[in-house]
């Protein structure tokens, strides 16, 4: 805001001014981006032999967008959670996922070679360019049961996925997986314990978390559907075939649901459109709302610095 800036020039006590002074960069940061020059040593690693750069970029977007969009949904709980501890927990989980997303998007941009950095990919990409699964973008309407049900499924699936990506031939995917496994283990435990408390709690908490599971369940099938890009990269030793994760994830979910006295929903999976879904850039109407909030400031003030 120009008014603030003018006042700040004359007011040594202006908090924003002193903040800017204290970090005194040679180069001002983009107001809506990460704000600092970030030299990530691994991101510039060469594309492994025999791997198609366009496919690798696409795969990094898939893994990165799942994390980015889920992180944005979790961040909606900041100032809205039922207790401060849960707000801090959800924000912490969102931050871990955002960190994973930043590296993966930066890798996607580098491999793509079209001059887009992590910020351009996050803030300026149109909706059909996103490659996340629908589960990440679903609204939870600030219903804590919905947040927990989605996080349980998402973290159980992503943990199984990253755990098998530890040996990916892409060094960035492997490095994100190695850090992510440790983080996701905490996320999954958090969601699982809350599922137990809610499912095996009062009649009302049981009813609501069961309804939440029923609501997210149609989007579970997509998590295990193999896209063409993934299929090609499995061959190349970069990706994991998500279909292979099903048994492991089901085992975890069944154990949690049984302990929580909840019923595994039987709803059929939401369909695809001509075989295409989130991995091909076809999204539910909810992603547009997520992106409107995520991108609006950056789009209204292109290139703004502070």
């Amino acid at each position, binding site marked *: 805001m120009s008014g603030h800036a003018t006042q700040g020039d004359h007011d040594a006590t202006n908090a924003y001014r002193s903040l800017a002074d204290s970090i005194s960069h040679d180069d001002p940061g983009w107001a809506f981006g990460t704000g600092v020059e970030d030299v*990530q040593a691994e991101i510039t690693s060469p594309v492994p032999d025999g791997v198609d750069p366009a496919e690798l970029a696409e795969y990094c977007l898939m893994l990165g967008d799942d994390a980015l969009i889920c992180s944005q949904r979790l961040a909606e709980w900041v100032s809205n959670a039922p207790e401060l501890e849960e707000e801090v927990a959800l924000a912490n989980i969102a931050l871990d996922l955002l960190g994973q997303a930043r590296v993966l998007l930066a890798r996607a941009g580098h491999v793509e070679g079209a001059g887009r950095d992590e910020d351009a990919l996050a803030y300026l990409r149109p909706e059909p360019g996103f490659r996340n699964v629908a589960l990440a973008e679903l609204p939870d309407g600030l219903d804590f049961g919905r947040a927990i049900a989605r996080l349980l499924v998402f973290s159980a699936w992503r943990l199984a996925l990253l755990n098998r990506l530890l040996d990916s031939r892409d060094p960035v995917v492997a490095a994100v997986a190695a850090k992510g496994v440790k983080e996701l283990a905490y996320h999954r*435990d958090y969601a699982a314990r809350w599922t137990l408390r809610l499912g095996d709690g009062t009649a009302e908490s049981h009813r609501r978390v069961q309804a939440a599971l029923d609501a997210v369940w149609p989007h579970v099938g997509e998590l295990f559907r193999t896209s063409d890009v993934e299929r090609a990269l499995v061959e190349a030793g970069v990706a994991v075939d998500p279909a292979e994760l099903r048994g492991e994830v089901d085992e975890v979910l069944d154990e*949690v649901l049984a302990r929580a006295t909840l019923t595994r929903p039987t709803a059929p999976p939401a369909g695809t459109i001509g075989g295409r879904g989130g991995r091909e850039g076809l999204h539910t109407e909810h992603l547009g709302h997520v992106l409107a909030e995520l991108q609006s400031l950056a789009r209204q003030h292109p290139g703004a610095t502070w």
Partner: protein
Amino acid sequence: MVTGVTGPVGGALAAREVVATVVDPEMPMLTLDDLGVVRSVDVEGGAVTVTITPTYSGCPAIEAMRDDIRARLSEAGYPRVEVRTVLSPAWSTDWISATGLRKLAEHGIAPPDRVGPRPTGPVPLTLTAPSTVVRCPRCGSPATEELSRFGPTACTALRRCTACREPFEHVKGI
């Protein structure tokens, strides 16, 4: 834990000593060295390259660390500084030095247990809080309980001592 120091011995060691004094912005009782996030300090022709690793993927402190390293090296006469971050191998709380563990306890933060190498295969689910004893850093009582696994910083959980009733932070093992 610095794993590699290269370049002219005097310059690199001097620069390394400067980096070693930079403190963690969120747990300022620890230096970056105590925390085990400094991978290497290289000096070549007056330019310093410092390689650090984040504790958690989204750790917001990494940017403050980078600024502080630049500022301290600049004060010490190294104007050309590049701070690089590497993710692999992933940081572990096992890399916190013995001095670091002691300083945490002295400042009322329960240090992490040793994690050791991670077993291969699926990650086991833990549906109840692990029964490992975390002693209260204030009164030493083993009777403490976990309030939340996610505390005020990415690396800490929040606990409470049932003997002295004080809440405290615990650096959770990863």
